[in-house]
């Protein structure tokens, strides 16, 4: 173990060290929000709208108020004066000038009440909150609330919603289009005019529920003495929760502490700030006792944001060799009854649409359409799986039309390695020009092709083009690109505690991503410690003044870099203080194993605890001139823009022609996530994402009937893949160091989830050859596969 003099070594970063998080979790001592018990806590249950669209004509809570154990019953009218509705949702809603110029987004206001009092717009919208001694009693009382509704016409299908005469979800949004944008790169019209072939395809990615195993939950308590409201919540974005509570209750952020305890998964829907979080803070303040609400699964399926749900109409201009010269994409995203994320997901679809392909001319219009459904938000991949499904199915379909091998056509359209960095002629969501930073896509595809056994498979098929077998095997490819590590920033505090231990505090709260382990690896390298010796905490707004959260594959990149920078600063400061103590130049000192020692002489040293004490304020302080006392560094990392991860995925499937059953036998993935802090953690992220992608490809679908009634409100109907549906998964890691952050990493959180639906659909199409099946709607449930086969046979 040799320490170097640059205050940073590569001892721990890059190694699959065991996770620090695990011990409490495997012994049942994790602390999720539902596990926190505060004496005197009252429990909340909600009456939620059973109607997709209705006017509320009366609410009678008298019977509920008289219910056993009931503390109070709260309606929208009760809080009208004290709790403001949601008018802003997420901080990224701000449109940067670069994006404004290129995409001209139009975003209409669409405020969302905390409790609906006049009108309900989706089944599941909260109407009345009942607070009682325990949850069962609260549910008993909910059944006693009498709400009368006057049904309004319902709009469920986003295609119908944009047609004139459709019922309106919000009266002042007269075509139900809440947000829209249009961007172009190159000269699309000319390219289409010159193209030998033009084809049009429709693609549809279904509505999904991210379904973290832990539902949402909030526990709020107000302490009069300090006038502080503490809110524990299962959220990916504690700071946004703090801001919304502050704005909507009219109290200073300084009086609100939001804490995210252990979290049982998030995957996107917990990025949003929800009515329950604001309301519980209000209830804690007004009732003067702790209140908690633990969402149950049937609530979760209607009250927590859904995702995906896009319909693309894609026109492709291409030549005889399959080279795509231009694409026009016009798509709708079914936003549900409110659109908390504005154009976030839809713009992601637009910006990632062309994936790893050149497609020099491109035009896309996205429209976020209101319907009477649960609001739509991000879910792992956030707009990218939808776009990839359209793009890579289109590549396969034009290959088919031309009689060419689809993987050849993919290869022909790739951005060559020597073209990097590659500008795309349109801005990212942060307003910065999209420039793919690095990667050798053709080499990666070739490597995956070899791994997957595609050539042998293609040869075998050529030898025997038709088969009578009932079960057919196919291999399908798809690609992905992913801007990772989006800003605006993330903060970290790195400090010494009084025992001389290194303490790291991150603004980005984890929910299974191993922040403790990976950030400790980063800090351990800076201080010559073992990751186990780093004291890590996160997810508490009292630890770091400002922060954003964990989503969009950003934590390793943005929060990790903040830890690195803050750590380096503290390391320098520690040496500077030690230099006062040891009376030797800081340049000649090394921080290692809890001490600062003279280079080449490990016995001339001071401990980090000595350094801590020496830096305390007062006349005895031994701090470098011109600096403040203390050993605490706060640093925010503001990335210049995103860094692009990319990869390819091949799915090997078998299809039962008689039942339409699809079995995914193997997934091969090659991916570039930059430098890997902890390879096993990266593998885990990919495998989890891949299985979610398989779920989206084959099993999962949130279904509504024509009256806007949700039909998939249980885990019996919303089908998550189980262990029995897991294919063999093989991975090739490429690690092209990113130069857009000091760690050289790219995000990987979402990578696995993006390409599987496209690859699996392509594999099913491949398996069914020579039939020409249309598999342009997800999920590929057995009945849809049979339907596609039947249609192709006609």
């Amino acid at each position, binding site marked *: 173990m040799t320490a170097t003099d640059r205050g940073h070594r590569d001892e721990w970063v890059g190694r699959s060290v065991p996770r620090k998080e695990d011990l409490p979790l495997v012994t049942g001592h994790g602390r999720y929000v539902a596990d926190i018990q505060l004496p005197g806590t009252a429990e909340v249950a909600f009456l939620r709208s059973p109607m997709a669209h209705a006017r509320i004509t009366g609410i009678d809570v008298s019977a509920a108020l008289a219910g056993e154990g009931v503390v109070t019953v709260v309606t929208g009218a009760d809080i009208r004066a004290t709790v403001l509705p949601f008018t802003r949702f997420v901080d990224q809603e701000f449109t940067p000038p670069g994006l404004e110029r290129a995409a001209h987004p139009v975003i209409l206001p669409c405020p969302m009440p905390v409790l609906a009092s006049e009108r309900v717009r989706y089944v599941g919208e909260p109407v009345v909150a009942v607070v009682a001694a325990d949850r069962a009693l609260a549910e008993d009382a909910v059944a006693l609330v009498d709400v009368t509704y006057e049904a309004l016409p319902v709009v469920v299908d986003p295609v119908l919603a944009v047609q004139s005469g459709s019922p309106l979800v919000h009266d002042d949004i007269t075509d139900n289009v809440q947000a829209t944008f249009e961007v172009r790169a190159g000269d699309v019209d000319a390219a289409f005019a010159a193209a030998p072939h033009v084809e049009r395809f429709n693609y549809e990615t279904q509505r999904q529920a991210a379904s973290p195993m832990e539902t949402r939950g909030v526990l709020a308590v107000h302490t009069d003495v300090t006038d502080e409201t503490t809110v524990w919540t299962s959220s990916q974005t504690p700071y946004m929760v703090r801001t919304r509570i502050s704005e909507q209750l009219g109290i200073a952020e300084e009086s609100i502490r939001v804490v995210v305890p252990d979290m049982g998964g998030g995957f996107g829907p917990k990025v949003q700030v929800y009515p329950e979080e604001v309301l519980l803070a209000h209830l804690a303040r007004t009732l003067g006792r702790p209140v908690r609400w633990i969402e149950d699964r049937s609530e979760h399926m209607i009250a927590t944001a859904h995702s995906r749900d896009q319909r693309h109409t894609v026109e492709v201009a291409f030549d005889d060799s399959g080279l795509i010269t231009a694409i026009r994409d016009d798509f709708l995203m079914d936003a549900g009854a409110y659109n908390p994320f504005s154009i976030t997901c839809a713009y992601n679809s637009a910006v990632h649409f062309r994936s790893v392909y050149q497609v020099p001319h491109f035009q896309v219009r996205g429209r976020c359409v209101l319907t009477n459904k649960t609001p739509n938000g991000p879910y792992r991949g956030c707009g990218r799986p939808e776009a990839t499904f359209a793009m890579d199915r289109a590549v396969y379909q034009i290959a088919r039309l031309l009689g060419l091998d689809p993987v050849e056509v993919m290869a022909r359209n790739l951005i060559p390695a020597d073209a990097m960095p590659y500008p795309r002629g349109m801005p990212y969501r942060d307003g910065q020009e999209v420039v793919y930073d690095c990667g050798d896509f053709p080499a990666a595809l070739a490597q995956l092709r070899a791994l997957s056994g595609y050539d042998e498979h293609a040869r075998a098929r050529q030898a025997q083009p038709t088969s009578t077998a009932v079960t057919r095997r196919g291999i399908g490819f798809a690609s992905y690109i992913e801007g990772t590590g989006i800003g605006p920033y993330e903060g970290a505090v790195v400090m010494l505690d009084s025992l001389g231990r290194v303490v790291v505090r991150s603004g980005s709260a984890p929910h299974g991503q191993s922040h403790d382990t990976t950030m400790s690896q980063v800090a351990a390298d800076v201080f010559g410690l073992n990751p186990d010796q780093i004291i890590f905490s996160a997810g508490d707004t009292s630890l770091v003044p400002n922060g954003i959260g964990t989503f969009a594959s950003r934590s390793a990149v943005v929060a990790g870099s903040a830890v690195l920078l803050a750590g380096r600063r503290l390391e320098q400061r520690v040496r500077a203080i030690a230099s006062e103590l040891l009376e030797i130049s800081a340049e000649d000192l090394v921080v290692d194993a809890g001490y600062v020692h003279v280079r080449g002489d490990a016995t001339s040293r001071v401990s980090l605890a000595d350094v801590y004490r020496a830096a305390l304020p007062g006349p005895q302080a031994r701090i470098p001139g011109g600096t403040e006392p203390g050993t605490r560094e706060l640093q925010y990392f503001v990335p210049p823009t995103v860094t692009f991860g990319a990869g390819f995925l091949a799915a090997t499937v078998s299809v039962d022609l*008689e*039942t339409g059953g699809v079995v995914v036998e193997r997934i091969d993935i090659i991916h570039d996530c930059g430098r890997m802090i902890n390879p096993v953690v990266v593998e885990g992220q990919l495998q989890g994402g891949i299985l979610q992608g398989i779920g989206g490809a084959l099993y999962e679908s949130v279904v509504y009937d024509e009256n806007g009634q949700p039909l998939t409100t*249980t885990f*019996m*109907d919303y089908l998550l893949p189980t262990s029995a549906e897991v294919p063999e998964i093989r991975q090739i890691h490429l690690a092209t160091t990113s130069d857009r952050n000091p760690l050289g990493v790219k995000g990987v959180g979402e990578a696995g989830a993006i390409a599987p639906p496209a690859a699996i659909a392509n594999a099913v199409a491949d398996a069914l050859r020579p039939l020409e099946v249309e598999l342009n709607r997800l999920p590929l*449930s*057995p009945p849809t596969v049979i339907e596609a086969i039947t249609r192709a046979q006609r």
Partner: protein
Amino acid sequence: MKAPRFEYRAATSVAHATELLAEYDGDAKVLAGGQSLVPLLNFRLSNPAALVDINGLGELGGHRLGADELHVGAVCRHREIERDPQIAARCPAIADAVAQIGHVAIRNRGTVVGSIAHADPAAEWPGLAMLLDAQFTARAVQGERTIAAGAFFDGFLSTVLDPTEVITAVTFPLPPVASGSAWIEFARRHGDFALVGVGAVIECADESITSARIVVTGVSDTPVRVAAAERVLHGAQPGEALFAEAGRVVATQVDPISDIHGDATYRRRLAQVLTRRALAVAADRAA
């Protein structure tokens, strides 16, 4: 999702159970494995005044495999049947089916009789009961009666059982040793309720089929026995073509419902395909 209030009454004997059921006059429910009933309570889709727990009744436990029948007590769990290798050897259709019920933790707790009483048209045990012509013994304070499977199921989650009756046992007559049997089903995921399931029993003599039974689940509000398809098989020579023909007949005989997991056309198709496959396996297993 907390259950509504009810009174919990643990029965101390079968007679006590019937008295309790009579006491609540139809507003009490028998609690067996709870694997169907408790989800309904948690969703507040069911709101009985009382639950009569029969799990403590040792006299209702266990199963007995005789020479030509399988006798199963009311608190015998799926898992107990699954783990008896002699049942699998004697009547493979039962083993095929029971292994596909949910997951081990469900099978550790859920009961054969509870599944039959619950009468889910997609469930395995009601289908097996129809396939094997099971007989149920039902007790009430007034006395005991025996109900044949064919007369038991009368609609979606509905049976002819009176709410004051408790089933104490079920007897499955077993097909002859030389017969072959199979249960084949298609579910979206491992452990899910099947979209469609098909049970088949075939007996052969001198290269031809002397007796055949076919039951299909998931295509109606109860499991259905398809006599028209059985007739196709009688006296004919077993073979793929014949089984395919039986499958086609099944498809003409069933009138499935549509739901989010599969529409009527698709279920009909599955019934056809699975019938053929089940018959082939059953024929293969026939001595």
